[in-house]
């Protein structure tokens, strides 16, 4: 029987879908490993409200590491706090979603625990076997880990979110065990990409633009009307980000964000392997590209060979008609 400690990332007390995925995966793992406990930990300051909110999602217990020293996420202080907690709880697994924070933190936790880590798990077998993608998702590896402690990050698109229930898990407040001599990092600032649109990782529909849009201005005047008409999140290919058309956090791909919405619309994107790695698990894929040989058409359910500068505005009008019919 194995117990699981889930790191519940929060953004100013709010739990994104990516965190609820980790909770669900943690609960599933504990169940498949003999019915152990799934404990969720939330770290930061002023956590009473958020901890109570988290407690509704079906885990065994919530622990709130509430301390001013955890006010800003930093790898070294969070790794210290997580590892001390994991050891004192005697869990076998420490788990988080493979968000930017999860990717930054969990390997440090693993090394501190002298534990192996399996990154971006996409499934948990009935006996607890884990599967993860290699080669930009072109191979799936079944992996095994040895030792009393194991660290896992889960791919957010591969698991459902935990759902809130009627009962609430007990919440325990705890002081993080920290070693000040080991804390050497300073948070300076966070430059947020402000947007009223849904998050890429949460949206039901994602509309992405590629180099075919030719400029950042075109993203605004041509693509954004389609994005907003569909109530979608906006994404981009690496080429578009590299060219400076849009900020880096819109990049969808092997080394950017991995998304799997109900509908993914790729506009002016050729479909390099590395881009496909970030979206090929979307339920329905649409591609609009003037090059009929573009590799994106190999994964698209519906492909439209057309000049995007004509087709996209046409699509905005056609969608308006559907809405009002």
């Amino acid at each position, binding site marked *: 029987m194995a117990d699981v400690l889930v790191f519940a990332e929060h*953004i100013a007390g709010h739990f994104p879908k990516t965190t609820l995925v980790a909770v669900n995966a943690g609960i599933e793992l504990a169940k498949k490993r003999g019915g152990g406990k799934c404990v969720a930990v939330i770290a930061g300051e002023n956590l009473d409200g958020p901890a109570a909110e988290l407690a509704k999602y079906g885990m065994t217990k919530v622990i709130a590491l509430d301390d001013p020293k955890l006010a800003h996420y930093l*790898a070294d202080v969070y790794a210290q706090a997580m590892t001390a907690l994991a050891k004192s709880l005697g869990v076998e697994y420490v788990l988080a979603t493979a968000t930017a924070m999860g990717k930054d933190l969990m*390997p440090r936790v693993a090394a501190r625990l002298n*534990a192996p880590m399996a990154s971006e798990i996409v499934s948990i077998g009935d006996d607890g076997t884990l599967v993860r993608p290699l080669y930009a998702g072109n191979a*799936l590896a079944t992996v095994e880990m040895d030792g009393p402690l194991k660290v896992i990050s889960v791919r957010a698109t591969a698991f459902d979110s935990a759902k809130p229930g009627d009962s609430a898990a007990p919440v325990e407040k705890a002081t993080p065990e920290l070693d000040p001599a080991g804390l050497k990092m300073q948070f300076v600032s966070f430059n947020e990409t402000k947007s009223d649109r849904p998050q890429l990782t949460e949206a039901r529909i994602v509309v992405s633009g590629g180099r075919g849009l030719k400029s950042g201005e075109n993203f605004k005047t041509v693509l954004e009307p389609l994005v907003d008409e569909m109530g979608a999140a906006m994404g981009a290919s690496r080429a578009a980000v590299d060219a400076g058309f849009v900020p880096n956090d819109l990049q969808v791909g092997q*080394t950017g964000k991995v998304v799997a919405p109900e*509908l993914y619309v790729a506009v002016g994107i050729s479909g390099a392997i590395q881009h496909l790695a970030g979206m090929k698990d979307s339920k329905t894929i649409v591609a609009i590209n003037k090059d009929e040989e573009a590799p994106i058409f190999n994964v698209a359910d519906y492909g439209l060979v057309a000049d995007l500068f004509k087709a996209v505005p046409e699509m905005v009008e056609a969608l308006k008609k559907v809405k009002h019919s």
Partner: protein
Amino acid sequence: MKILVSVKRVPDPATTIRILPDGSGIATDNVKWVINPFDEIAIEEALRIKEKQGGGDVALLSIGQQPWQEQLRTGLAMGADRAILVRADQPLDSLAIARVMAKIVGDEKSDLVIVGKQAIDDDSNQVGQMLAEMLGWPQATFASKIEIVGTKCTVVREVDGGLETIAFDLPAVITTDLRLNEPRYASLPGIMKARKKELKEIPVDSLGVDLTPKLKIKTLAAPPKRQAGRKVGSVEELVGVLHSEAKVI
């Protein structure tokens, strides 16, 4: 300043991956081998830091087999000063790699370690962070900008939702993201000079590091294939099928 950069030999990103029938690995007969793209960015950044500081030492480190010399020579041709190849024939997990690197960093007395954020074959994104913890050093992952003044380092990181800036004193471990820089090509004079630069080989067993794998790959399989789609003739048709067939709008 002594900068250490790790270099991994990986299949060219454009390679079509073919999984062996017994699931034990990928077919390597037609693979073109290159420096992991994120490691190239790391080499480039190290060279720029050295150039900005007007001096220093940039050493490359690979942990692998004999043929990895090819990638190290490419890095030397870009302008690195010397290279170390830790000869290891057995598969090593990220923990073991980090331990080997920590030993080398200690022997070298490096001030800064720059590694690619992930290897594009394994996609684990662990070694840099593990190394930082083992050394007790600060870590700055997914770096898109690095500024060093004396021993004070400020790094802008690509994170979810925007760009985060953190600061710390060296020594530290930094992992590179795509937009940190654009790597230079090796020049012909650079390639000529590289032949004479030091490439030291060290057998991994001589380092006294625990290499026992704790993460093991049991088998590889192909991902489920998507059903083939179709082309539509017009925007009108597209919107129609999305509404009536796919039922997503």
